[in-house]
């Protein structure tokens, strides 16, 4: 899907690395040989000695791991290019260590037809510097009423199907989509939020909303739709992924579904893992996201579930919004926060705080989403695409929104102190990002 046809790529050997591969559980000193866009060899025997005639990168003992797979990225292409294009998003992704992004169908027009999947793939091939896959709409125009051509869209390259930022309210439609998708082995990714309960709500219901005088939505809005969906999965056998879990009650539903052996998985956004409703403070619209930031107890529960392996995937839910949509009173601003470039660094906060070990944390951003989507990337393995990142886990830095690469700057992490920086990002054997301050051998 990307332009890696560039002939005669120079082979590269990464020496003296700490290899971390969540897919195999590998965490050891070693090296990786990259040739023709793929991982040609890896292991302890490459720690010090590179094969002849290869470019050598001395990793100085830093972490070399698979590039991240972010399965929830909103861009503005087509239709809202002033917010973000596939190109600008891909530069933000590369700087953040994301080598594969899955773009959502919430565009203008909605990606609900084969021609539009083709369009995005072509635009990405010509302009993006990381891998781009399309998650197509599962209902026409995301209207929640009529199923799209799931089979043809899948054949065109759509890796999963979703109703974008809204839930399918019609239970019969949801049942039929799951049933039809099962025949094709297609993954259904659903945002779970009862449209009636959440109507008019702009944040989590509770003390903070009450003090701010803002309409809040009960957590039950998320859990109700999730429970319904789990019943439908039981009925249909369709593969189902809840895109963003944000509260303890929803976790219980997913846990029970998994215990029954249902094909149910779930994700959480980096925002819900690292922020809570108190961060909204005096009506800061960059903290307005969907689902809304919850109470600290819920954030902690989501983190614990991630550590316990109950949450399969972490997404950035990168959603560029500009002044036109964010510089408004809180209740009138748009939802959404950018996150591609800060995804890994923000996630590493959980590791540095001792809330989760490195391996399961990285698994949720590499091997797990790749496996769910059926992608060959997200692992260090002979023959796998050479989508790699070199990470200095210790390097401190401060987020400066003016320095971010995304076209829109609505980050909730502005001025946040981070620890952990991507020094090098490689996609299919091509270096697509190098940290300017990096000094390497």
């Amino acid at each position, binding site marked *: 899907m990307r332009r890696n046809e560039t002939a005669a790529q120079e082979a590269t050997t990464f020496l003296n690395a700490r290899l971390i591969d969540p897919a195999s559980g590998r965490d050891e000193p070693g090296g990786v040989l990259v040739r023709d866009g793929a991982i040609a060899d890896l292991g302890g025997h490459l720690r010090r000695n590179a094969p002849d005639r290869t470019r050598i990168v001395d990793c100085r003992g830093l972490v070399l791991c698979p590039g991240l797979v972010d399965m929830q990225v909103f861009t503005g292409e087509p239709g809202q290019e002033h917010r973000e294009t596939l190109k600008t998003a891909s530069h933000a992704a590369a700087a953040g260590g994301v080598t594969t992004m899955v773009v959502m169908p919430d565009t203008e027009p909605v990606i609900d037809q084969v021609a539009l999947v083709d369009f995005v793939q072509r635009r990405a091939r010509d302009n993006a510097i990381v891998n781009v896959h399309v998650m197509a709409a599962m209902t026409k125009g995301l209207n929640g009423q009529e199923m799209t051509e799931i089979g043809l869209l899948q054949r065109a390259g759509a890796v999963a199907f979703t109703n974008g930022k809204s839930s399918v309210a019609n239970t019969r439609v949801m049942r039929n989509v799951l049933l039809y998708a099962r025949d094709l082995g297609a993954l259904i990714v659903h945002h779970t939020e009862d449209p009636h309960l959440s109507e008019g709500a702009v944040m989590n219901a509770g003390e903070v909303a009450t*003090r701010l005088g803002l309409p809040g939505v009960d957590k039950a809005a998320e859990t109700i739709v999730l429970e319904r969906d789990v019943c439908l999965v039981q009925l249909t056998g369709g593969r189902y992924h809840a895109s963003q879990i944000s509260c303890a009650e929803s976790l219980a539903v997913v846990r029970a579904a998994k215990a029954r052996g249902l094909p149910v998985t779930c994700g959480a956004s980096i925002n819900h893992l690292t922020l809570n409703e108190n961060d909204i403070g005096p009506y800061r619209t960059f903290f307005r996201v969907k689902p809304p930031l919850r109470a600290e107890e819920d954030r902690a529960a989501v983190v614990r579930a991630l550590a316990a392996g109950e949450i399969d995937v972490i997404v950035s839910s990168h959603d560029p919004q500009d002044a036109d949509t964010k510089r*408004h009173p809180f209740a009138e601003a748009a939802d959404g926060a950018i996150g591609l470039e800060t995804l890994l660094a923000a996630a590493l906060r959980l590791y540095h705080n001792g809330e989760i070990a490195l391996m399961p944390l990285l698994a949720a951003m590499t091997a797990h989403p790749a496996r769910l989507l059926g992608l060959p990337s997200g692992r260090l393995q002979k023959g796998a695409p050479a989508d790699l990142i070199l990470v200095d886990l210790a390097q401190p830095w401060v987020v400066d929104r003016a320095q971010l690469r995304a076209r829109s700057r609505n980050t909730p992490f502005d001025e946040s102190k981070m620890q952990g920086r991507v020094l090098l990002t490689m996609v299919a054997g091509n270096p697509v990002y190098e940290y300017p301050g990096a000094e390497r051998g």
Partner: protein
Amino acid sequence: MTSPTQISFARRHLLTCADLTAGEIDALLDLADKAAESNRQIIKKRDVLRGRTLINLFFEASTRTQSSFELAGKRLGADVMNMSVAGSSMQKGETLIDTAMTLNAMRPDILVVRHHAAGAVELLAQKVDCSVVNAGDGAHQHPTQALLDALTIRRAKGRIAGLTVAICGDILHSRVARSNINVLNTLGARVRLVAPSTLLPPRVERLGAEVFTDMNAGLDRVDIVMMLRLQRERMQGSYVPSTREYYHFFGLDHEKLARAKPDALIMHPGPMNRGVEIASTIADHSRSVIRDQVEMGVAVRMAVLEAMARQLPNR
């Protein structure tokens, strides 16, 4: 009484009651007491705001509050301009911030703003150079209303500390309730909230109030009964089934009022729905101070504008 030079209210804006100290509130109420006196004289006009420009910027319809601020400004000698949204560029898609920048360029000294979105006035205050008074933002705050309520209570009862105040009705959508909870708590009153659960915001007790869903219990031995307006739109959202049922359980009638102390005051921020949240005869009851509230509204707004004027740069 505090002399003008000793006013302990030194803020550029008045946006919320949540962070006002008892000293600041007392100072404003003392100043308002004086204003109330001067408002009863034949010559009401003073020159505290002479040469100053006050703009009333109302994004939401209001008769009472807007005219009250207008009168307050004029009695202090300010040039007052009223801007309402209907027919202006704000309805032609201009954003709040652009409107703020435009008005700022006209160099007003004080902006009085009402907006339908919570936090909007604070947002606007961040973008302008002048003083900003919140005249109501969504369901968030309505500071001058809470101050005029406090003044009305203080004048009628001689104190506020130790009194029990029941705020009854649509708490969920009420900025008046939120501001009053703040001010009354700060001044040492006990606050009760009386409403059906559908009209109570979650965790509202954490703001400093005792919650009742039974009005008879909620009014038991209270000193003040403060009624709130029930907007008719609330029927559509299934918050309450009908005005008839609402009046039956939460309307203030003689029977329910009898639960309160014999000298309990009856208050309402207006405009009233007679027969919905309050019986017509109670609105006109001898213990009703609803008209005093309107009078104190002008006095409190004069006090706020005067206090604000002392913070304005003098060049």
